[in-house]
């Protein structure tokens, strides 16, 4: 099948009734989840993950892609209206977006998030497919040492971002990897860390732990804060949108944001938040209103909001090309793929390309769906921010339980979700890195198997990681991504005594 035909097939797949339903439901839920405080894109994805169980794998991916796309817009709603970003990646938009809202230009601010986000999302989807082909070919040349090194790089990139405490970040990643070791070892048949508990023999299931650690832990955090007063928004806002001319005027900063989002998205660990902050500061240089950033400038909303939407498709590239997720959202996608018996990695593009092109089609359709849903229902989305926390928390807990029922898991897994929730909450509460732990759990089997295969290849000598240039380069990058933040902090400390 030629590339063009495959791409068209993918788009058509997303336009079937099942595809359209998955995409629109996904985007609508994504906007809601994004707008709800504390519920990030990946939590929104984790919450719907169980309901993809019965669907085809490509429809499952479309639903999840829809949630991810929608959440990046949804998060900008509370950012603009109450200056409380629904997602960390919407924080830059809360600066100028909120200033515009205060001036009575709420609709304009939302428009400068929605339209650049849509444009970026479409360009990002094209970039994803364009990058996949050469990268998958590169990945086919990878052996166990390279995959081991790449997985370690992915993990350390996430750890490097845990600024608050590096030791806790490393411990969190190692903790996640350790969890992945539980169960019967494939190579030797030995039971590891099962302690005679039957439910652990087949290993710790990823999906319940991901739901517990990401979603349930966050709900616990919300319960902890539930007694604090909640900001409420007047829904009497002006929803006049920007004009076409104004959008065109924002095009340079939109495209700059998109480019930044694409580059940052492909790199493991970095993600939407890094991209949107970078886009905010960089677009300031090219914007005519650069000097007035912070006072409510369209460019200052358009650039970061384009960047966080461009990250969505490109952050799937490491997962689809190499089988190594570089973010929690990609890790959830990986969970969905594995749940459906699809192994992500370089064989995917040659073996089951229809899944990749269906994801591409889903992302494109989701971009359009985001625009339509965002444009048609400006006001209803605003009401969502006003939902009292008690009701939100309770509904999400019910949703978690229904999700576990949907997975047809046993009682043991229900407790697994709860235990993971408690562990995740405590980790978060004491400054550990939950994201690194989740990624460690997902990457664990890959890391260990490739390490052991590499050592079999070299007859036990670790030199194999130094002798193979790609493996060495990746391991050096891994070391650098942990050392870099340390050095930067030290330099900063010296400069500001």
């Amino acid at each position, binding site marked *: 099948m030629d590339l063009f035909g495959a791409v068209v097939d993918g788009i058509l797949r997303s336009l079937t009734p099942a595809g359209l339903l998955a995409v629109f439901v996904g985007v609508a839920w994504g906007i809601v989840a994004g707008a709800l405080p504390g519920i990030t894109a990946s939590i929104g994805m984790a919450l719907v993950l169980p309901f993809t169980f019965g669907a085809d794998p490509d429809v499952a991916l479309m639903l999840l892609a829809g949630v991810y796309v929608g959440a990046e817009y949804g998060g900008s709603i509370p950012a603009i209206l109450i200056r409380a970003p629904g997602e960390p990646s919407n924080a830059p938009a809360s600066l100028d977006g909120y200033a515009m809202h205060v001036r009575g230009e709420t609709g304009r601010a939302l428009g400068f998030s929605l339209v650049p986000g849509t444009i970026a999302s479409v360009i990002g989807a094209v970039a994803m497919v364009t990058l996949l082909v050469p990268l998958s070919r590169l990945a086919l040349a990878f052996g166990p040492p390279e995959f081991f090194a790449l997985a370690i790089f992915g993990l350390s990139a996430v750890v490097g971002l845990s600024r608050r405490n590096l030791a806790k970040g490393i411990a969190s990643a*190692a903790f996640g990897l*350790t969890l992945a070791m539980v169960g019967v070892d494939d190579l030797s048949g030995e039971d590891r860390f099962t302690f005679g508990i039957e439910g652990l023999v087949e290993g710790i299931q990823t999906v319940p732990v991901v739901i517990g650690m990401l979603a349930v832990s966050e709900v616990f955090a919300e319960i902890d804060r539930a007694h604090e007063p909640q900001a409420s928004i007047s829904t009497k806002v002006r929803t006049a949108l920007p004009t076409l001319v104004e959008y065109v005027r924002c095009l340079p900063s939109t495209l700059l944001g998109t480019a930044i989002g694409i580059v940052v998205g492909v790199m493991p660990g970095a993600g939407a938040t890094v991209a949107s902050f970078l886009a905010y500061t960089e677009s300031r240089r090219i914007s005519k209103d650069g000097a007035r950033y912070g006072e409510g400038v369209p460019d200052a909303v358009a650039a970061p909001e384009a960047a966080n939407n461009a990250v969505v498709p490109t952050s799937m590239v490491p997962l689809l090309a190499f089988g190594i997720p570089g973010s929690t959202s990609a890790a959830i996608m990986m969970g969905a793929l594995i749940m459906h018996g699809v192994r992500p990695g370089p064989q995917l593009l040659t073996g089951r390309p229809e899944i990749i092109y269906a994801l591409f089609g889903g992302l494109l359709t989701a971009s359009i769906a985001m625009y339509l849903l965002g444009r048609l229902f400006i006001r209803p989305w605003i009401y969502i921010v006003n939902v009292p926390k008690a009701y939100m928390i309770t509904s999400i807990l019910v949703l978690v339980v229904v999700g576990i029922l949907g997975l047809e898991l046993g009682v043991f897994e229900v407790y697994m979700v709860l235990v993971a929730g408690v562990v995740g909450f405590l980790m978060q509460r004491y400054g*550990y890195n939950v994201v690194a732990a989740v990624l460690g759990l997902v990457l664990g089997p890959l890391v260990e198997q490739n390490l052991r295969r590499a050592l079999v290849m070299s007859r036990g000598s670790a030199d194999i990681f130094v002798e193979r240039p790609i493996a060495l380069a990746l391991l050096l990058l891994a070391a650098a991504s942990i050392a870099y933040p340390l050095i930067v902090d030290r330099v900063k400390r010296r400069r500001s005594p």
Partner: protein
Amino acid sequence: MRRAETVAALATLAFGTFVVVQARALEDPGLDAIGPGAFPAVLGLVIAACGVVLLVQALAPRRREAEGDAEPPTRFGVLAVALALLVAYARSLEWIGFSLATVLFVAACLALLGVRSLARLVVTGIAVSLAVTVVFGRLLGVDLPAGRLFGG
């Protein structure tokens, strides 16, 4: 805060040590280069080493740049009740069925989170239970337990 850091450090150190001890106890049938216990043992060592670093950080004299964390104390009591409610909810599903268990759970959870109007508790409970039954039970085909009490 200081004490919490020390406890976290000790917990990290203890967990790492536990992993090392458990991993060392695994037999190596010699099928591959390093055996099933080697990688977990390394992970345990890494975790334990992080624990030592954290312990040093926690016990070291405070730096000038005292972190200004005036975080409010965690409401462990409320969280424990929420967790107990969730366990009770999960357990009661097979007995009293999804519909009734959900009404009770929603009402109890809302009450815990400060909703005080009885009418609201009941109405929301029934509304959520009905909505989930229709959307997930009927439309998405999730198998919601009917409950043994009701012949499910």
